[in-house]
């Protein structure tokens, strides 16, 4: 039984079904990556896990409990965090306030978590009083991930965290994500940069038109000649 899983999900945003029976799951301390061509429903699959679209069929369960009926807010309260692809920081608030907002639902003292996050992303400690809107793209992505971590989630979902950042920043972000995994958080991520993402992935899902085409460990997928030919450019 996986930690967070969506099984045989079918659904879309009202019109035609985007997901046509796909299964995604992730375990504790593991990085799972969803890759695939444009329009395959990668982000949609992730949003389905978060409850942002109505599924016609399929169940989402978390820690062995069926959460299909919960609203996104309730799922977040259960311990799932989500970093959207764009508009993922509060631009008019300081870095520190962004982190505070991440901990909005927590009643306990989150000073310790902030210290951990600063350790993970040292640049944020330096920029804590700066407005998030004034930071560079890569720094904003760090704020976004850090904000999500502030709720001490059991699962962290990232929607294309490296979209629009330079290759150097991308490598650094992946390093950070590996470090986050060390803290025991389950990480589920949608990525355009399939090759790099599969390198750090424990497991990968290759989605094509809303269905699972390949599901295996990251290394196995990288080694699979068909996957290489069709999705990784040889």
């Amino acid at each position, binding site marked *: 039984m996986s930690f967070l899983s969506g099984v045989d999900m079918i659904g879309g945003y009202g019109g035609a079904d985007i997901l046509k029976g796909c299964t995604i799951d992730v375990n504790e301390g593991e990085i799972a990556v969803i890759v695939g061509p444009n329009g395959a429903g990668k982000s949609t699959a992730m949003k389905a896990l978060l409850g942002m679209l109505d599924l016609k069929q399929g169940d989402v369960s978390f820690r062995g409990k069926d959460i299909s009926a919960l609203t996104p807010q309730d799922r977040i309260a259960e311990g799932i965090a989500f970093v959207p692809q764009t508009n993922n920081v509060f631009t008019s*608030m300081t870095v520190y306030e962004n982190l505070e*907002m991440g901990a909005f639902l927590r009643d306990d003292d989150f000073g310790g978590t902030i210290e951990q996050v600063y350790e993970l992303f040292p640049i944020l400690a330096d920029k804590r009083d700066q407005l998030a809107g004034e930071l560079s793209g890569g720094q904003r992505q760090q704020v976004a991930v850090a904000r999500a971590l502030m*709720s001490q989630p059991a699962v962290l979902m990232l929607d294309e965290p490296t979209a629009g950042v330079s290759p150097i920043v991308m490598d650094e972000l992946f390093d950070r994500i590996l470090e986050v995994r060390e803290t025991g958080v389950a990480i589920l991520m949608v990525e355009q940069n399939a090759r790099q993402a599969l390198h750090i992935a424990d497991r990968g899902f290759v989605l094509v038109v809303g269905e699972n085409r390949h599901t295996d460990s990251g290394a196995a997928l990288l080694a699979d000649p068909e996957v290489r030919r069709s999705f990784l450019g040889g």
Partner: protein
Amino acid sequence: MEAVTDFINALVLVLNFVVVPGLSYGSQLALGALGITLVFGILRFANFAHGDTMAFGTMVTILVTWWLQSKGVNLGPLPTALLALPAGILLTILLLVVTDKTVYRYYRHRRAVPVTFMIASMGVMFMTNGIVRFVIGPNDQRFDDGERFIVHARDFKDLSGLSEGLSIKVSQGLTIVIAIILVVLLFWFLQRTRTGKAMRAYSDNEDLALLSGVDPDRVVLVTWIIAAILATIAGTLYGLDKSFKPFTYLQLLLPMFAAAIVGGIGNPVGAILGGYVIAFSEVMVTYAYKKVFIYLLPQSLEPAGLLQLLSTDYKFAVSFVILVLVLLVRPTGILRGKVL
């Protein structure tokens, strides 16, 4: 020596007819514009009912003031209306919360476009206006009592020996003091409290705020409560300073909108700045400078006309022209507000 006295006289003149009225009117506008800008930031629509919300709150305050006055209750030198304010605020909160539950919430949950909200707010405006006129009538009402002046023009003349007097009305002094207190409280609330930060986050990025667990209904509720407090106080202060007439409050909508947009809509600091910019422009453009120049210039150069740029009837034109200028030159407002 005479030149110095003349200069001081001119200064007092400007102080008396431009600075003091500008400060108090600006504070009233700022409080009103704050309400508009908060509603805009959180609910994302221009609230046409805000002027009538002010009128409603002021009306309740006036009724309670009259009742208190009839019971012989008063605050000595201060206007009795201050005692009645809490009642006005409470009923206005009730009004706004009920309109939200019955009108706006439906559209919010359907994620309707802002224009729909605006038209709905016109409906609310009609209804509120109807209630106010029905209860208190369309005419001018006065409800000020207590001391009229903090500084009396005659006393000032006697004390200073100047030929120009400076007078500060109690209502003007009160307006400025209360506005400062309210603004400080509001900013403390927005910057320091959990709910205030949730409001800012929601205004900045609604989706992300929801992902962070902010409860939208609660944020909206608090916004209406703050808007009600600000509107009632602004309306009552305006009524004490000038007079209360439902139609005037409807007309205040334009300078308040102008203030909010000029400062940068959705930005509270901008609303305050905009309030003073609009108020001072209005007062300065419509003031007749003849006497000031008589003091400042040698007798031979005495001005012939009133030296009034615009007649006071055109004060709305002033807010409008500034609004248009800002729209042309810098549509986001002086301090960057939202551009949706």
